[in-house]
């Protein structure tokens, strides 16, 4: 009852946000929730980053130097889980929350309460996950992929890991259902599907992937749980199951997951490059179709993670060719971004620098991916630092760079202030150089045979590991500049205009900076 009267009282939309802590706890406002998601992601980025620093410090020199090997394994496992589920996915969801309604001219997200729940499930999941580090037997240490039987050796942390995955899964499924409903149902009149900004398109497809594969992961970890505690035999050969079956189910989730981590990045970059090239995006519809084809293909390539596990020849061939097909739509995208820049009148503000670096470095990561897709050679590369180099090129200089590009790009719209361009450039150039110092040598380490997920290594790998660690520390420190730029921009700075960037197009740039608490309560008409 109280809620009814309460709401009736509020029906004439007061425009200012409520004051105090409860604003953030109870909010249903898409901008508030977007901010919460992004702040959470930033915190997790530093938590996961600290773990990475431990890893690189241990690997600075051969020998067991700093940490106990078991703790090292916990760091590699938790670093991955924190970065994937805590940093990259929430950052993208935060951007989606803030931007999608204003990009399609909607008053808010379609299901505002669900939105609040989806966000607050994240801290819940991470409480469960991070607490495991302090439990008897330590946190998860068998790799983020949670392969049995290794993962079953985990101590008290085991059920916490499983339930954390469940909670985080519910969070992303709920967030994604909301995003799909918003995009399909809340567009302003005239905002047809093929007029939507590409970020919206990318998220529509990403959200579909999340709704399709997160439940599969939930099923897989549930089977782990029952195998451990309730005597089932899904992954035990003695009972007629198969540990390899876990890998199939996991990667049926896992490969679409890597596209969940990159498709929104494609959307961000497709927004930024046209702005700073002052030309419309080249090949809009081919971008949409390419994104959809990548999403489709992502369901039929999971076996490329398992070439060395043992698989019938026909399976190896199928997964190899299907994987290589992914390079085609990806190539279309890279071509389109370059064609957009071609003969544009480009300027190189920080967002554009990150976007261009994304195009170049993501391509390097994509190409090493194609190398890994070749079944016969993957037997050599699998589980080496070559794979580590591959996925860090696509994830750090891909996904993370795109998020940074997006933050610089929209920060003036969010805060009403221009960020410090000089510091932004410092951040970019330091990150750009250090990320390559960090990850490029890892290609050679891998090709020369250095295994991944290991605290010590043979002496011939010493130099490149030291170089890589130096790059790692530099990259980590550079991110403090990012933090400082954001804090500085929130607190003040040159006043931003509505359009912010000379070449920026789209509904969000018609709003004042900072955008008011409620926007598009009466939908704009899109021509």
């Amino acid at each position, binding site marked *: 009852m109280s809620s009814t009267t309460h709401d009736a009282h509020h029906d004439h939309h007061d425009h200012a946000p409520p004051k105090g802590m409860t604003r953030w706890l*109870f909010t249903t406002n898409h901008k508030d929730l977007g901010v919460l998601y992004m702040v959470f992601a930033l915190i997790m980025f530093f938590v996961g980053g600290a773990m990475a620093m431990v890893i690189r410090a241990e690997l600075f020199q051969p020998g067991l130097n700093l940490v106990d090997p078991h703790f090292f394994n916990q760091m590699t496992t938790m670093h991955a889980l924190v970065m994937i589920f805590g940093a990259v996915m929430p950052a993208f969801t935060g951007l989606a929350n803030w931007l999608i309604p204003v990009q399609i001219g*909607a008053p808010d997200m*379609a299901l*505002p309460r669900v939105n609040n729940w989806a966000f607050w499930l994240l801290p819940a999941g991470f409480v469960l996950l991070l607490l495991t580090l302090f439990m008897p037997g330590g946190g998860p240490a068998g790799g983020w992929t949670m392969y049995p039987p290794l993962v079953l050796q985990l101590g008290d942390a085991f059920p916490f890991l499983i339930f954390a995955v469940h909670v985080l899964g519910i969070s992303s499924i709920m967030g994604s*259902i909301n995003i799909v409903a918003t995009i399909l149902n809340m567009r302003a009149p005239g905002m047809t599907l093929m007029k939507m900004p590409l970020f919206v398109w990318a998220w529509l497809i990403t959200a579909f992937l999340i709704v399709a594969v997160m439940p599969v992961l939930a099923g897989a970890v549930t089977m782990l749980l029952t195998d451990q505690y309730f005597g089932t035999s*899904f992954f035990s050969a*003695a009972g*007629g199951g*198969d540990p390899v079956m876990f890998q199939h189910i996991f990667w049926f989730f896992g490969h679409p997951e890597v596209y969940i981590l990159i498709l929104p990045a494609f959307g961000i970059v497709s927004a930024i490059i046209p702005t700073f090239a002052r030309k419309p995006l080249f090949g809009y519809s081919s971008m949409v179709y390419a994104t959809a084809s990548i999403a489709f293909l992502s369901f039929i390539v999971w076996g490329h993670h398992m070439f060395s596990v043992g698989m019938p020849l026909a399976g190896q061939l199928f997964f190899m060719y299907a994987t290589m097909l992914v390079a085609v739509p990806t190539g279309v995208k890279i071509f389109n971004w370059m064609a957009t820049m071609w003969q544009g009148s480009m300027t190189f503000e920080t967002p554009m620098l990150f976007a261009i670096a994304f195009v170049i470095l993501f391509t390097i990561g994509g190409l090493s991916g194609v190398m890994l897709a070749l079944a016969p050679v993957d037997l050599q590369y699998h589980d080496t630092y070559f794979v580590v180099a591959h996925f860090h090129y696509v994830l750090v200089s891909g996904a993370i760079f795109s998020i940074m590009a997006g933050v610089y790009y929209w920060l003036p719209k969010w805060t009403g202030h221009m960020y410090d361009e000089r510091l932004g450039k410092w951040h970019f150039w330091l990150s750009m150089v250090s990320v390559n110092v960090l990850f490029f040598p890892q290609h050679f380490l891998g090709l020369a045979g250095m295994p991944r997920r290991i605290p010590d290594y043979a002496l011939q790998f010493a130099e490149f590991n030291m170089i890589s660690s130096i790059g790692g520390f530099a990259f980590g420190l550079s991110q403090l500049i990012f933090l400082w730029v954001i804090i500085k921009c929130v607190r003040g700075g040159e006043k931003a205009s509505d359009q912010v960037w000379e070449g920026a197009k789209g509904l969000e740039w018609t709003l004042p900076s900072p955008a008011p608490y409620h926007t598009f309560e009466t939908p704009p008409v899109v021509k």
Partner: protein
Amino acid sequence: MSQAQGAYYVPHDSRWPVFGIPGMVLLAAGFSLYLNGGSWGMPLMVVGAIITLIMTVMWFRDVVNESVAGKYNTQVDASFRQGMAWFIFSEVMFFGAFFGALFYARVFSIPWLGGDDPATARYLWDSVALSWPTAGPGFLDLDYQAMGPLWLPTINTLILLTSGVTLTYAHHAMKENHRNKVIAGLAATVLLGFIFMCVQSYEYVHAYQDLNLRLDTGIYGSTFFMLTGFHGLHVTLGAVALLVMLIRVIKGHFTADDHFGFEAAAWYWHFVDVVWLGLFVFVYLI
């Protein structure tokens, strides 16, 4: 009605999610502690479950009140439809994981372990003959019987199919504003769901007591109980949802052209129905 005309209803704040979060943490942590053998686990879990339950009930109550107060326009209605449809899709994928495990075991791992793959057979269990249903090469001397389609599962199939019919009958009656027929149809559906669960429980008792078929009876027991168990859980949820709808019908919450709550529960029920057909064919029949 009039208040919400045109504008999309956005609640100003939402307390139940944040209220329920500690409940979910307690539920998960309590269950974990319980599994690890801690004595605090069970009580924490119960507290967590109660909080989560309160969250669910109160949240839905708010939504029902707003709906009855006429705050939702057709666009809000469409959002709920989208939300429910995609939620059901995610549930389909969840079951997909377990069906996938069943197919994988039957098509790959059992034949391989049974000698089709020479290497596996040589290094693990030499020359055992395996065929479905099996508890696996490690439990060859286990004495148990498989659960055939006759008669309990067949009866249950008929019960669920009939419940689909009674539900559709109720839906048509709803569209034609025949409230008593709606009530009759819905009540029959809930009752059939209840009978289904009774038969299913009896089947489990039968399996454990007479057939020596248990959750730990190798891959056969694992897939059998996990698939039928999760299905049973969903039947229970669906029946509770339909029961709530029955109460709402009696309270007069729905009209001939505005009854999405009812439809959502009905969609869910049909989904549970379809999953059962898959189970009947792949778990019991072949």
